[in-house]
C-alpha cells in the first residue's frame, strides 16, 4: 500500500459523516436544546390583520398572568430607538409596531415569562385594539394610481420600490422583431416558504461583564454580529453569536427576524437569559418568503431553431419591506443568469418591485439569489419554443448550447461562465433514461389517448459569491475564510467562516484538508459558527461554502506547506529547493524514500524548528474568489397523468449534475436528492396564497404541503465532471443545483403530456385540480 492510498478521507472518498455521531444519538445541540439556568421564555403577540391601525395596546391583564414578567411593545422599543431596524437591502423593517401593522402574523408585542406555557398565557391576555385599514394584496394593483400607499413613513408617494434592468434593450427589441418565431409566456412563480423542520429561534444572555451572547439559528453568524453592533451600539467585542447545530436553513435563516431582537432586548432588560423559539404558524406567516415573481418572457428563434434573443419583464412582490437576502448591488439577485445554457447575442431583463401587505423577504429557498426564477423561465420558454417549432426539445437544446470550447464564456447579460459541457450532461441523461424509447412509447400512448409527458431542463447555476469587487452584503465583502492549526502530534483544528446546516461541513472540509495536508480526516476537527473563535466570514447560503471557505481551507493548507517544506528540508538536511510535496508527504526530489510526513514536520515545528523559523504550524486565509462558479446539469422527467382525476405521477426522474471536482460523492448525491425534492415541492405542492383580506392561507402544515416519502419521486442521479478552472481544486458547489433545475423539468413534462390540449403554461404548483381543469375544459369544448 502506498502512502497515498493509505490516506483516509481525502478528496473523492465517500466516507460516512463525522457529525452523524451526535445526531443519531439525539445529542445534537440545536437552539432549543440550549439550557441555561434561569432561562425565561419569550412568546409573541401577532397581528390578525394584514393592515390595521393599532388604537390601543393594554399589557395589564398579561402582566397579571402568573409567571409573566414583562410585556415588550413597540413603544418600549421606540424609547430605545429600536422599534425599526434596517433590512439587508437597506430598507427599513419594524421590530415591533408603534402605529400600524403591515401584514397578518406581524409581531405586535413580546411576552416574557418563566416558561413557554406561561408566556403563551400572557400572549393570550395582551389586549390589542385594531382599526382595519385597506389591504393591498396584488402587486399589480399596488402599482395602480389610487392604491393605498403603504410606506408613507419613507416619504413614498406610491408602492413602487425599485426598477432594475440589465442588457441591451434596443438590440433585443430589434433582434426579436427580426426573429422568424417569437413566443411569449407569463409565468407566476408563487410565494413559497423554506420551512426547515427546525423553526427559527435564539437564546440571548448578558453576562456579568456586560457581554451579550446569542445562540441563534443563523446561517451567517459573523454578519449578524456586525449588524447587531451597528444597530445596538454595543461594542462588537462584547457580542458573541453562536450558531449551534441548525435543523435546516435553505436561506430562511439568513435574515434578522424581530424575534431575535426582542429576545436580546428582553435579556438586557430582565438580566436573565431569554429563549425565543417560534412556532410553525409564526414561521410560515412572518418569516421571509421566497420567489413571488410575476414574469413575462419573450424568446425569439430562427425558423430552423437557432435562439436569437430573450426579453424578460418581471414584477416582484416584496411584501411591506424589501428584506431580500441579496448582495447589495443586485436587488433582483442573480436573476440575469436567465440566458441560461445558451449563447444569446442579446438579451434584456427588467424587474420592478412593489410593496404589498405581506411579510417581507425575497430569500432564496435553497437557491443562489433568484437563480431558480431565472432557470425556470429560460427552461420553460425553450421547451415551449421546441413545441412551437415542432422540434424535439432535446434537439433544440443540443443545437443551441454554448459549446465546451467557448468557455470561459461571456454571457449576453455580463457573466463569465467558468466551464461547462452542457451537451455532455444532456446526452448522458438521455442515455440513462432511454430517451428515444420513451418518445416512442409516448407516441403510442398518445394514439391510445393516454397522457404521458417527457420534460427536460438543462440549467446553468451561478454560485460561490463572490468576487469581492462585485459582491457585498451591507458593505461586507463576500470573501470567506479558514484558519488551520496543526498540533505538535500532527492533529488538526480548523475553523471556518461558514456554517453548516446539514451540508456535512465537518466531514467535507476535513477531506479537503486531509488531501492538502496528508493527514487522515479522522484527525481533523472542523469548527464553525462561533464568532469568538472562527475567522470572519459571510456564512453559508447560495452554495458558497465549497467555492469560498473550501477554497480558503485549501489555500491555508498550502500556506502551511510552504513553511512545512522548510522544516522538512531542515529535518532531511537538504535545501528547501530540493523538497517536493508528493504522495501526501515531503520528499527529497528524486529520492522517494527520503521523506517526512506532515506529522513529523508538525512535531519539529514545536520541538525543533530550524534556525530563524517561527515555532508553530498554522495559517489563515481569507479567500476572495476570482469569479463565481457555474455548476450545471440536465434533468429529464417522465410523467403519467390520470385523465379522470388530473393526478400527475412522476414515473421517472433522472438528474445528471456537473459540479466540478467532487469532495465526497455520497454527500453530493445526498445534496442532490434533497435539492430535487425541494424542486419537486414548489412544482407540485407548495404555495402560500393570500386571500383578498390578506389572510395567509397556508399558515400550518395542514395547508402548506411539504412532500412526504410517498409523493417524492424515486430520484436517479448521474454525473459528469468539468472542473472549475479557477477554484484551487476544481470544485463548484452543489447544494442548490437540483432545486434550481428540477421545477422546469417537471412542468415541461406535464405540459408535454398535455400538448393535445394546446396549453402552453399552467402556473405552479400543478395541483390535480389545475391539470384536471385543462383536460376537462378542452374535452368539453
Amino acid at each position, binding site marked *: 500500500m502506498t502512502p497515498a492510498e493509505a490516506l483516509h478521507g481525502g478528496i473523492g472518498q465517500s466516507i*460516512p*459523516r463525522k*457529525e*452523524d*455521531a451526535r*445526531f*443519531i*444519538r*439525539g*445529542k*445534537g445541540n*440545536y437552539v*432549543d*436544546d440550549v*439550557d441555561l439556568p434561569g432561562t425565561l421564555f419569550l412568546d409573541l403577540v401577532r397581528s390578525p390583520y394584514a393592515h390595521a391601525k393599532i388604537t390601543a395596546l393594554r399589557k395589564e391583564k398579561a402582566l397579571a398572568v*402568573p*409567571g409573566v414578567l414583562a410585556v415588550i411593545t413597540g413603544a418600549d422599543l421606540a424609547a430605545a430607538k429600536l422599534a425599526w431596524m434596517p433590512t439587508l437591502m437597506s430598507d427599513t423593517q419594524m421590530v415591533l409596531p408603534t402605529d400600524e401593522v403591515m401584514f397578518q402574523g406581524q409581531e405586535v408585542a413580546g411576552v416574557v*415569562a*418563566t*416558561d*413557554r*406555557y*406561561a408566556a403563551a398565557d400572557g400572549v393570550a391576555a395582551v389586549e390589542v385594539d385594531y382599526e382595519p385599514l385597506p389591504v393591498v394584496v396584488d402587486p399589480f394593483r399596488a402599482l395602480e394610481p389610487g392604491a393605498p400607499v403603504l410606506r408613507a413613513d419613507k416619504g413614498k408617494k406610491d408602492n413602487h420600490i425599485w426598477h432594475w434592468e440589465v442588457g441591451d434593450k434596443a438590440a433585443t427589441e430589434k433582434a426579436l422583431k427580426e426573429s422568424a418565431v417569437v413566443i411569449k409566456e407569463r409565468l407566476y412563480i408563487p410565494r413559497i416558504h*423554506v*420551512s*426547515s*423542520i*427546525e*423553526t427559527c429561534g435564539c437564546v440571548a444572555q448578558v453576562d456579568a461583564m456586560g457581554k451579550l451572547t446569542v445562540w441563534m439559528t443563523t446561517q451567517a453568524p459573523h454578519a449578524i454580529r456586525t449588524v447587531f453592533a451597528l444597530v445596538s451600539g454595543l461594542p462588537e467585542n462584547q457580542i458573541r453569536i453562536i450558531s449551534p*447545530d*441548525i*435543523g*435546516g436553513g*435553505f436561506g430562511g435563516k439568513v435574515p434578522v427576524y424581530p424575534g431575535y431582537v426582542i429576545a436580546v432586548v428582553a435579556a438586557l432588560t430582565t438580566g436573565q437569559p431569554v429563549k425565543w*423559539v417560534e*412556532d*410553525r*404558524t409564526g414561521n410560515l406567516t412572518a418569516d421571509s418568503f421566497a420567489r413571488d415573481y410575476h414574469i413575462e418572457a419573450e424568446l425569439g428563434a430562427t425558423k430552423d431553431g437557432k435562439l436569437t434573443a430573450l426579453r424578460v419583464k418581471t414584477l416582484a412582490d416584496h411584501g411591506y419591506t424589501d428584506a431580500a437576502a441579496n448582495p447589495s448591488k443586485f436587488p433582483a439577485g442573480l436573476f440575469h443568469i436567465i440566458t441560461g445554457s445558451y449563447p444569446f447575442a442579446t438579451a434584456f431583463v427588467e424587474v420592478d418591485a412593489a410593496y404589498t401587505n405581506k411579510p417581507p423577504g425575497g430569500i432564496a429557498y435553497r437557491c443562489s439569489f433568484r437563480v431558480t426564477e431565472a432557470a425556470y423561465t429560460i427552461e420553460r420558454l425553450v421547451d415551449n419554443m421546441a413545441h412551437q417549432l415542432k422540434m424535439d426539445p432535446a434537439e433544440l437544446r443540443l443545437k443551441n448550447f454554448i459549446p465546451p470550447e467557448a468557455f470561459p464564456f461571456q454571457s449576453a447579460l455580463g457573466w463569465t461562465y467558468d466551464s461547462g459541457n452542457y451537451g455532455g450532461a444532456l446526452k448522458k441523461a438521455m442515455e440513462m433514461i432511454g430517451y428515444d424509447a420513451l418518445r416512442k412509447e409516448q407516441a403510442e400512448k398518445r394514439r391510445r389517448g393516454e397522457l404521458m409527458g417527457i420534460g427536460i431542463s438543462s440549467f446553468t447555476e451561478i454560485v460561490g459569491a463572490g468576487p469581492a469587487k462585485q459582491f457585498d452584503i451591507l458593505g461586507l465583502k463576500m470573501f470567506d475564510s479558514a484558519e488551520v492549526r496543526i498540533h505538535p502530534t500532527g492533529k488538526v483544528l480548523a475553523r471556518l467562516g461558514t456554517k453548516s*446546516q*446539514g*451540508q*456535512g461541513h465537518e466531514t467535507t472540509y476535513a477531506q479537503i484538508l486531509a488531501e492538502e495536508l496528508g493527514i487522515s480526516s479522522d484527525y481533523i476537527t472542523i469548527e464553525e459558527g462561533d464568532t469568538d473563535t472562527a475567522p470572519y466570514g459571510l456564512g453559508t447560503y447560495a452554495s458558497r461554502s465549497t467555492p469560498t471557505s473550501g477554497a480558503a481551507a485549501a489555500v491555508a493548507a498550502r500556506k502551511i506547506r510552504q513553511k512545512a517544506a522548510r522544516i522538512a528540508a531542515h529535518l532531511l538536511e537538504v535545501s528547501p529547493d530540493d523538497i517536493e510535496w508528493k504522495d501526501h508527504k515531503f520528499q527529497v526530489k528524486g529520492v522517494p524514500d527520503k521523506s517526512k510526513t506532515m506529522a513529523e514536520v508538525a512535531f519539529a515545528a514545536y520541538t525543533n524548528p530550524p534556525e530563524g523559523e517561527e515555532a508553530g504550524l498554522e495559517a489563515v486565509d481569507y479567500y476572495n474568489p476570482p469569479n463565481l462558479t457555474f455548476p450545471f446539469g440536465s434533468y429529464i422527467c417522465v410523467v403519467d397523468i390520470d385523465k379522470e382525476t388530473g393526478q400527475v405521477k412522476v414515473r421517472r426522474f433522472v438528474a445528471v449534475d456537473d459540479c466540478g471536482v467532487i469532495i465526497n460523492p455520497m*454527500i453530493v448525491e*445526498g*445534496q*442532490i*436528492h*434533497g*435539492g*430535487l*425534492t*425541494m424542486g419537486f415541492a414548489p412544482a407540485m405542492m407548495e404555495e402560500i396564497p393570500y386571500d383578498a383580506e390578506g389572510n395567509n392561507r397556508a399558515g*400550518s*402544515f395542514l395547508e402548506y404541503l411539504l412532500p*412526504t*416519502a*410517498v409523493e*417524492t419521486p*424515486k*430520484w436517479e442521479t448521474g454525473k459528469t465532471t468539468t472542473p472549475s478552472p479557477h477554484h484551487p481544486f476544481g470544485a463548484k458547489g452543489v447544494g442548490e443545483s437540483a432545486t434550481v433545475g428540477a421545477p422546469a423539468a417537471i412542468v415541461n413534462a406535464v405540459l408535454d403530456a398535455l400538448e393535445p390540449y394546446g396549453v402552453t403554461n399552467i402556473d405552479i404548483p400543478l395541483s390535480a385540480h389545475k391539470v384536471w381543469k385543462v383536460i376537462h375544459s378542452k374535452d368539453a369544448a
Partner: protein
Amino acid sequence: MAIDAAEVPRTPGPVTTRTIHVTVNGVSHTSTVQNRMLLVSYLRERLRLTGTHIGCDTAHCGACTVLVDGIPVKSCNLFAVQVDGRKVQTVEGLASGATLHPIQEAFHEEHGLQCGYCTPGMMLASVALLAHNPNPTEDEIRRGISGNLCRCTGYVNIVRAIQHAAQKMQTPAKGGP
C-alpha cells in the same frame, strides 16, 4: 428509580397538576406535571431528553415521534398525563451503552440524515415499522415513514437506511451465516 428534581410546577396559579408514573428508556420517573403539559415538553424540559424535537406543533412533521408501549406517537399532540403508567422510548434509548441500534448504524452508513433534526423521529418511526413488518418493500417503507417530514434528504437514503437496517436485524434472527 430517578426522582424528578423539578416536582413543583414553575407556574403557580389555577393551573391543575397531576402526578404521573412513567418509564422512559427503562428508567421509571414519578413526576407532578401540569395537566396541560405536552409529552414533548415533559421529555425535553423535565427529563432533559432533548433528542426529541419540535417541528410543527400540529402532528404533521413527526420530528417529535416517540414510542409509547412500542407504538409511534407524535409527542407534541399528547399530554404527559396520557402516558401515566406507560413505557416511553426516545432516541436516547435506542443504543444500549456504546452499542448502536441497527437503525442508528444504518442511518449513518447510508447517509440517511443531513441536518439531523428529523432523524430521531424518523428512526423511531422506522423501528416501529420494522417491528411490525421486518422485511418491508420500498413502497411499504415510504408509506411507513409518511408521517415524518424530512426537508434535507429527499428520502432516498432514508429508505436505503431502513432497508439496510432490516437486513441487519434479520441476520442474527436467522442464526447468522
